[in-house]
Structures are given as C-alpha cells and as structure tokens.
C-alpha cells in the first residue's frame, strides 16, 4: 500500500519534471515599465539626533531610508531575482563542482548545540570534539589517508598547508634542500601559486597527446631537487591518470612526495582512493565534494589528509580519542596553527551531516551519477569533446570564441561552463554538471549549448540580451572601476 503510493508520487514528479520549469529569467532594474527603485528612492525620513560628541564629528541631520519590513523584504527578494545561483538553475562550471547545497544541512548547522564558545575546555565540548573526530576519520577513510586536519579554510589554503607539512617532513629528514615542485601544465592555477608561496621553484610538466601526464617527461624532471609532485586525478580534462602507480613510483624513488588536489574527488567516492594510488598528502574541498556552500556563500573549508609518516607535522590542535571521550592535542612536530580554533566549524558540521545522510552507498552513488550526468550531457551537445573517456567533467571545444558562447548561453536561462581553460583544448568549454541535476535540467543545458552552436557568430558577439547586466566591458571595468552602490544611469 505505502509502496504503491510512493510509485504514484514518483510518476507525478516525473511528469512535472518533463514539462520542466521555465528556464531561469532574471529580474531587471528596468523591466518594461517597471523599475526597481533603490531603498532611498522609495521613501526616506530625516532624523536629527542630540549628541554629546564634538560638533566637527557629527551631522545636524541624516536622511535614511524609511520603509516597512515587507517593503524591505520585497526589495531584496527582487534583487536576488536579478542574480543567478544554484537555487535558480544548474551551474556547470568545470572543476568547481557547483552542486546544490541541501537545506537540511542548514538545519543541522543551526542546531543550538553547535553554539559553543571555542575556548571552553575539552571536557565541556565532548560532543563537538566527537563530531570533529568522526569527520577526520571519515575523510581519512574516503581518501585512504592515515590522518586528517580539518583546519584549512579553503582548497588553496589546504594546498598551502599540505605543502608546508611536506616541507617540514623533508626538513626533518635532512632533505630540506629539495627546492622543486612539479606541476602538470593543465593543473589548477592554485597549485603553481601554492608551491611558489611556499618558496619552491615550480617545474611545469607537459601533457602527452592523449591529455595525461607525460611519464617520460616526469622521469626527466624528477630528481634530487624534487620535493613534491602535485596532481589532480581525474585530471582537469576529466581523464583518469592511468599511469598513476608508475608516476608515484618515479616520484617516490626520487625521494619526493605526491600531493593530491581534491578538486576532482567528486568522481571517485567509494571507487578509488588517493592514498591507494600512492599519494602522501591531499586536500578535500568540502564546498565541492561534500556540498557545503561555495565562495561568497561560504566560507569554504579545505581539510588535508596525510600518510602516517607526515602525521606528526600536521597543524595543531588535532582531536583524538581518550578515556572513552575525546581530547585535543598538538602533534609532535606540528607546523603550528593555520586557522583559529578548528577552522570554520559550522561548515564542518554541514559536511558531516551530508556524509552521514548519504552513507557509504550514497557517496558512491553521488560519484556514479556525477560521471553519468557528465557523459549524458556531452553526448547530447553538438560541440566536439576532443579528450576522453572522461569522468565527472569534460572539456568541449567551441568553434568560435568560448567567451561569446558563454555569454549567449545566459540568454537561454542557464549558467555557462568554465571557459578558455584548460588551454590544452582550443576555446575550451569545461563542463561539470554534477550529480544534483535531473535529466530534464541536463536537457535544458544541452538545449542551451545547441541553440548557441546554431547561432550566427555575429549574434553571439551581441549576447547576452536577456540578463540584468548586458555584456560587461571587461577592460574598462578593470581600468576605471566604479565602486559605488548607486545604480548606473545607463543600465
């Protein structure tokens, strides 16, 4: 009986889905006759204040917006409708893993029990330490690592922390003179930057013709100066580095360590583990793989995992089990703190809630669906995808300016993919739909790609026409930035 009801509901849901939500249409400052005024254009009131402050520090009177709460709420709702976010539609930005952030994790994070002052004693916050410990251990299991620190507040901060840990390890072994970090040319820009910030010389590794690490070039590059090889797997083209065990052997034989950039971990959950591939250090992007909010909606969180040899160098404090409970401690050769307290605590709560809700089977399905979605979408679009077989993301090649393609896709009510990178693909459209999009939304995306592919290049150059802001003059915006909260007259 209950099973039957469930089936009927599913059918209805599927029907509704086929009809599809209308593609997202942004609200505009000027929409036909309608204009959304600024708050101070709606209603203002002038206030005067008696003050004991010196006259040269005070004004006689001040004019402020004067509106009721519903008017303010409606104004900001309208502003939000001028935007495009994951709550409006898919954001298939390659390497960004812009998956939907489930609302239940906000409920969990808002639980009053999470509001504990971080300076309370370990004894007073056993539940919180327990959650941190379980999350550390769970991430270690997912990555095949021996120890995890949760502190770094973003992926790039995780990279920097991981490199510092590797550097401390080399120094402790009397190998501090190792001066080079090897990075494949298609790697994320943060890899080059993190290595350089940590004081290393960056050695760029060319790709071979099938888009993977050129093993012979690595053999030539690896040596006594090698501190680290940084790699993401699957790589930026979505390709699995099939030679990963050989790559690991080459680097380890040279005395170097392997760093895993966790940006593409969303394709591997329950399928393969960086630790098993030979990686010694890795970071996890909780705001990618584990669905915590991204960037401006963040903050992010970029825990790192390490092998047992590197664990003594992790940041302090760490959490461990003790006397049937939990305690914080400083690892023996810790590199110190990289963030206040335990990092962005409530982000960690959200990631933990997300992991528990999915369980190990659910996490595996996430990766399977992410890979399926990317492959389905690639099959449906008319742009060529030169490299494969790919996993959770693919890089298509635009026939024309990839930036024009992206702008034109906005007119079809979807967010475009990452453009012009990696440079190994001409006019790249780097696309990652993630597992959270339904077949109907993937079809919307494909329809947008294909409508743009069929558009005259001259019309592409004029796009977008349907968005709140039209084409931005990037050069003028950078040369003459106008930093003002006032609406521009020429919108």
């Amino acid at each position, binding site marked *: 009986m209950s099973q039957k009801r469930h089936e009927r509901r599913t059918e209805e849901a599927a029907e509704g889905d086929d009809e599809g939500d209308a593609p997202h249409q942004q609200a505009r400052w000027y929409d036909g006759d309608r204009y959304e005024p600024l708050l101070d254009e709606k209603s203002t009131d002038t206030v005067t204040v008696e003050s004991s402050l010196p006259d040269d520090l005070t004004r006689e009177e001040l004019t402020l917006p004067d509106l009721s709460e519903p008017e303010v709420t409606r104004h900001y709702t309208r502003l939000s409708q001028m935007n495009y976010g994951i709550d409006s539609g898919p954001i298939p930005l390659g390497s960004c893993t812009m998956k939907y952030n489930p609302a239940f994790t906000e409920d969990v994070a808002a639980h009053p029990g999470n509001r504990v002052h971080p300076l309370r004693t370990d004894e007073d916050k056993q539940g919180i330490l327990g959650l941190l410990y379980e999350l550390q251990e769970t991430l270690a299991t997912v990555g095949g690592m021996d120890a995890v620190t949760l502190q770094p507040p973003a992926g790039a901060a995780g990279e920097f922390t991981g490199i510092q840990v590797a550097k401390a390890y080399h120094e402790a072994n009397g190998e501090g003179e190792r001066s080079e970090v090897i990075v494949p040319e298609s790697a994320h820009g943060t890899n080059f930057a993190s290595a350089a910030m940590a004081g290393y010389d960056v050695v760029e590794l060319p790709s071979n013709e099938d888009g993977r690490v050129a093993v012979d070039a690595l053999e030539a590059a690896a040596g006594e100066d090698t501190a680290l090889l940084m790699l993401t797997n699957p790589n930026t083209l979505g390709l699995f580095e099939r030679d990963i065990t050989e790559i690991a052997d080459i680097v380890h034989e040279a005395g170097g360590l392997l760093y895993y950039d966790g940006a593409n971990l969303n394709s591997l959950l329950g399928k393969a583990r960086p630790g098993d591939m030979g990686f010694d250090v890795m970071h996890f992007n909780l705001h990618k793989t584990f669905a915590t909010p991204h960037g401006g909606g963040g903050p992010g969180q970029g825990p790192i995992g390490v092998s047992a040899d590197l664990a003594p160098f992790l940041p302090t404090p760490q959490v461990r089990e003790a006397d049937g409970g939990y305690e914080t401690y400083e690892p023996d050769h810790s590199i110190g703190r990289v963030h206040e307290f335990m990092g962005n605590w409530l982000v960690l709560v959200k990631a933990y809630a997300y992991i528990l809700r999915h369980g190990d089977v659910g996490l595996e399905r996430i990766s399977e669906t992410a890979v399926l979605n990317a492959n389905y979408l690639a099959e449906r679009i008319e742009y060529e995808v030169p490299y494969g077989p790919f996993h959770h993301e693919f890089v298509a090649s635009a026939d024309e300016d990839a930036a024009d393609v992206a702008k034109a896709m906005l007119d079809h009510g979807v967010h475009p993919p990452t453009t*012009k990178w990696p440079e190994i693909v001409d006019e790249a459209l780097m696309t990652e739909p993630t597992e959270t999009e339904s077949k109907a939304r993937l079809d919307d995306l494909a329809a947008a790609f294909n409508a743009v592919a069929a558009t005259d290049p001259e019309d592409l150059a004029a796009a977008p026409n349907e968005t709140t802001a039209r084409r931005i003059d*990037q*050069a003028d915006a*950078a*040369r003459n930035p106008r930093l003002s909260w006032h609406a521009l007259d020429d919108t």
Partner: protein
Amino acid sequence: MSFDIPSDRRYLESHEWTTTDETVRIGITDFAQDELGDVVFVELPDAGSEVTAEEEFGVVESIKAVSDLLSPVSGTVTAVNEDLFDAPELLNQDPYGDGWMLEVDPSDESEFDDLLTAEEYRDNIE
C-alpha cells in the same frame, strides 16, 4: 595577421623590444599587445633601480593574463613612462611609441649583440 616589427630596434624572444640609440628605450611588441588583449594594469620599477638582461623588471596585466616583463639589457633605469599607469591602453594603441616603458642607461652595450634582429624576431613569431 601581419604584425608591425620596426627594423630600427632589437628584440627578445619573450616579446620585448629595445632601441639601440643614445637613449635606450624598452617596451613590448605589437605581437605581444595583440596576444595579451586589452591591457588594464602595468607595474614598472622606479627610476634609479637596476634591471638585468633577461630578468624580470615588471608586470603587465590584461583581461586575459598576467605576464612578467623581461629586460632586453642590463643597466640603470633613467626614466619611466608614468602615462602607462593612468592609460595602460597606450600599450595596445602604440606599443613602439607612446607605449614605451623604460629608458635605461645600459651597463654593457655588447648585450645588444645577443638580441634578435627584426627579421629574426619575425621568424620566431611566424
């Protein structure tokens, strides 16, 4: 596309030019400004500082990329084109003229012989 490569100066493979006259001026080539696209920011050393041949002396930033600038010659900077700070578009509009970057008092004029001629530079970019 054919790029302007004046024959009255010398070039680095990394797309910087230098004059070899009494006043030695340094800048970037027409090809470089075209590859960069709209330049939005330029960082140059102060007058009086030293530059070294084939080493970084500044940074040019366009809407596409941030690139290091390498000096064709070694010497002391005697003048800086401060117009570029307010109008970086001069690099796009007139890379060999108003878009010049530095004037340098060269410490070793034999370094000019190591640089590419206009023909050699053209072969390099074609």
